[in-house]
């Protein structure tokens, strides 16, 4: 067992903590920072619910340890909206009814946000490939694909 002091930036706010080496980033976000928008499903990288953005890349927060984000920028679903103003991607999810129970939603939003920032030119097939890494048991995915496709032009403008 070892403890480590980490300095990380989560949604633009610096967080300095001492963490046990085996603490996953997902547990760190939820239990220590109380950012419970990151959901935990399978805890072995399959379901995608815990997907967050580390240094611009969408990754599974259950498969990375908190100690590994020392000195890094982490973005969670809580950081997507600008205050009370939903991001264009979030607005699109609302408009298209792209969620029902919402358990998978934060992971899908983070996956799509990171992906669209890198690849704003996207096709429905690419979107389906992208969200094949996120399990949703409510929607059947059709509305999720529509929402992401509809939000994509916003990313073209800002890049």
């Amino acid at each position, binding site marked *: 067992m070892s403890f*480590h002091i980490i300095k990380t930036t989560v949604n633009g706010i610096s967080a300095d903590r001492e963490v*046990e080496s*085996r603490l996953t980033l997902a547990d760190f976000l939820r239990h220590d920072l109380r950012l419970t928008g990151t959901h935990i499903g399978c*805890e072995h990288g399959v379901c995608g619910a815990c997907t967050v953005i580390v240094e611009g890349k969408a990754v599974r927060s259950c498969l990375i340890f908190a100690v590994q984000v020392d000195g890094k920028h982490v973005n969670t679903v809580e950081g997507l909206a600008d205050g009370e103003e939903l991001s264009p991607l979030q607005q699109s999810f609302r408009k298209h009814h792209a969620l029902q129970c919402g358990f998978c939603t934060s992971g899908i939003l983070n996956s799509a946000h990171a992906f669209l920032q890198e690849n704003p030119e996207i096709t429905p097939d690419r979107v389906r490939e992208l969200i*094949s*890494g996120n399990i949703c048991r409510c929607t059947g995915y059709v509305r999720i694909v529509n929402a992401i496709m509809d939000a994509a032009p916003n990313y073209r403008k800002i890049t």
Partner: protein
Amino acid sequence: MTRVAVDWVSSAMKPASFDYFRPDTLEEAAALLATYGDDAKLLAGGQTLVPMMNFRLATPRVLIDINEIKGLDFIQQQNGSLCLGALVRWHEIESSSVVAQSNPMLGEAVRSVAHYQIRNRGTWAGSCAHADPAAEFPAVALISKARFTLFSTRGRRVVSVDEFFLGPLTTALTPDEILVDVEMPLFNSNTIWAFEEFALRNGDFAIAGVAVVIEPNDQEDFIRFVSFGVSDKACRLRTAESVIATSGLTHEAIDEAAASIKNDIDARSDIHASADYRLALTKALLERTLHRASVGHKQ
């Protein structure tokens, strides 16, 4: 400074406890590995190791995180080979123009590795060190005649792909060695190649896969076929290769080659598929890839 609440931590943590080291150099990592040996695991992408730790199927006492070591994330052409450093992630291979130019099969095969989020983190070297029989990279490495460089406090050694993969989850790496890079001879611009796998769901491990390379000239070994996901490791389909080398890519020869695969594959059954089903799939995939090759297709 708050210490994370140890009361919930000790009762609710998924992985068993371990000591964590984050060396800055390869030499430091090798020294740690030499000290802790079998008690230690290297942590690169962690996309296989951490799930196993979360299930406590793996309980290493020491984790040596190599992610912050500089100079292990290169993708370059060098001395007629494509060279990749150990920390190159799947998504970097997938999106690299150097890879697309020097070994296009690799860029294509990597798209079948897990999901976008996993490919952002997982590394080829981690996959090779793990040596799952259904993994794509070892199959492409085998057909590309790759060479791996292993590093330890005892020095460097280069191991051919044939010597590296020994069996399921078993490689030539000794407990004190780090896989640091791979070299793969470049594909010729006239090389005909095809790669196909069958998995139950997008991103799953393949139940069967086939890779085919036909070089333009008559040098030794210019026709190479590889099967993966079917036996205990990726393997060459030597009988099928010699049928095509002798008779060319005619319909009859392709049928004969596809019918010959059981000579070279020791197919395994598991909960996902029987050995017979895997052989039937491999036969179909080989026929399909060879028919594509017969019209000079570069995938």
